[in-house]
């Protein structure tokens, strides 16, 4: 039967419904600020977004979006290669290229389209792609479409990457290596210095997806490659406008002039409508803000350390170091769901993450930090977890070494 393969999902959803829990697609009924909303009828702290710098609700970005909608209308109704390239799209590409200090940029309608489109197009049949095992779904979708040989290396394991490149022999020089800056589920940072050194040794190409690290890492917020001092080794930087920049869309920048030809070969760019003028305008303003207000990044990291240290001191199983994504790992699936609801009941919204979105068979409660969170809000999030612990909902399996 056509629908048989969905039975496992149907069973899981029925299990959630039986418990009266609706963690997926919880509807935000009202947005009160960058960090607060009304969800399931109650006021909650939003600790499960990707609004790292709090710009989704910035009055300057909103004003630019309003102006653009008035002047240019609500949509372009067409592809970038047809009628959908407005002045703003071109300006945004120029500005994102300038932000990264390179000459070439493509703006996509979503972040997913950017990484999927680049991965699907850069390599083709006969080429080889080496991707981190914990790569985002958009990367897996893209490489599958590429027709290239796809080889996974162990997550953030430079030795495994080197071993696999060695096995390729002469093909290694044409291989495309794909890594991310910050990994979205556990918040860990890729070892880009080591990966870049291996890339240089084998003469391969390197694409880094900075979706969760743009605006977060690096002296000027360009991401993990800038923080690691290896930007000159990166051939293609992909990213999104929907996290630190608070809007929607994606990009790829590159020092290679060939990007201008590649643009016209990417189906995810050609066969979709371009971003609305209002989206482009707010993105451009957000890009200007992250360049001119580095204190937002500093606040984000203060908040990240506060949450990480707080959850770790409760003995929870969190990642190896502080990051704007602080995930708590659970082996007991039913317990994770109960904890998610327990946090909601206390006015804290976080993300429930289940396989295959989580990198192992564990469930996750993924907390994400914003520069716009106040220290008091972070304390409230920690207190909500402490309350779960007091109620016996956090079992020893969720406790780390701490």
């Amino acid at each position, binding site marked *: 039967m056509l629908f048989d393969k969905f039975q496992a999902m149907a069973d899981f959803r029925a299990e959630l419904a039986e418990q009266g829990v609706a963690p997926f697609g919880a509807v935000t009924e009202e947005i009160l600020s960058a960090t607060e909303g009304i969800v399931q009828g109650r006021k909650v702290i939003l600790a499960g977004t990707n609004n790292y710098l709090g710009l989704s609700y910035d009055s300057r970005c909103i004003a630019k979006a309003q102006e653009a909608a008035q002047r240019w209308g609500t949509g372009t109704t067409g592809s970038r290669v047809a009628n959908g390239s407005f002045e703003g799209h071109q300006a945004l590409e120029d500005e994102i290229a300038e932000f990264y200090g390179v000459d070439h940029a493509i703006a996509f309608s979503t972040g997913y389209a950017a990484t999927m489109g680049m991965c699907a197009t850069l390599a083709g049949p006969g080429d080889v792609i080496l991707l981190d*095992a914990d790569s985002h779904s958009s990367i897996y979708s893209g490489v599958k479409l590429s027709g290239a*040989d796809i*080889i*996974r290396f162990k997550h953030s394991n430079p030795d495994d990457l080197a071993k696999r490149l060695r096995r*390729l022999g002469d093909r290694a020089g044409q291989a495309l290596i794909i890594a991310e800056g910050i990994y979205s589920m556990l918040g860990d940072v890729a070892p880009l210095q080591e990966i870049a050194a291996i890339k240089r040794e084998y003469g391969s190409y390197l694409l880094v997806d900075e979706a969760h690290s743009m605006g977060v890492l690096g002296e000027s917020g360009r991401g993990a490659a800038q923080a690691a001092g290896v930007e000159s080794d990166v051939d293609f930087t992909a990213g999104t406008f929907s996290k630190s920049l608070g809007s929607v869309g994606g990009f790829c920048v590159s020092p290679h002039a060939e990007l201008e030809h590649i643009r016209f070969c990417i189906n995810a760019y050609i066969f979709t409508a371009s971003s609305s003028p209002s989206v482009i305008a707010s993105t451009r303003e957000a890009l200007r803000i992250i360049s001119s207000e580095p204190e937002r990044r500093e606040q984000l990291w203060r908040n990240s350390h506060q949450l990480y240290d707080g959850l770790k001191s409760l003995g929870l199983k969190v990642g190896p170091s502080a990051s704007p994504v602080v995930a708590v790992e659970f082996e007991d699936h039913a317990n994770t769901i109960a904890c998610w609801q327990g946090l909601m009941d206390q006015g804290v919204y976080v993300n429930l993450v289940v396989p295959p979105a989580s990198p*192992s*068979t564990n469930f996750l409660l993924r907390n994400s930090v914003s520069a716009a969170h106040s220290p008091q809000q972070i304390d409230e999030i920690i207190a909500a977890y402490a309350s779960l612990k007091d109620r016996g909902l956090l079992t020893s399996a969720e406790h780390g070494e701490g």
Partner: protein
Amino acid sequence: MVDYQEYLAFIYSALESLNKKQVTLSEDTELVGDIGLSSLEVMEFIEKIEDHFDISIPLNILPDVSTIGELAKKIHQLNL
């Protein structure tokens, strides 16, 4: 040069610890359908083969492979 039989023999031995249902293994045994390997176990199993023969097995060949014999044949073809 490793021949088909060598690949086959190693696949049988690598599957021993994963064959929880104690299915009788043959070239026609399905890795997922008969043995019941999860996607995570498939990746671990593939990695064992890669490390043993010091080769890389591209992920994109896997959709065309369902039985032990098909896997051995595919790896043999890739490494001729």
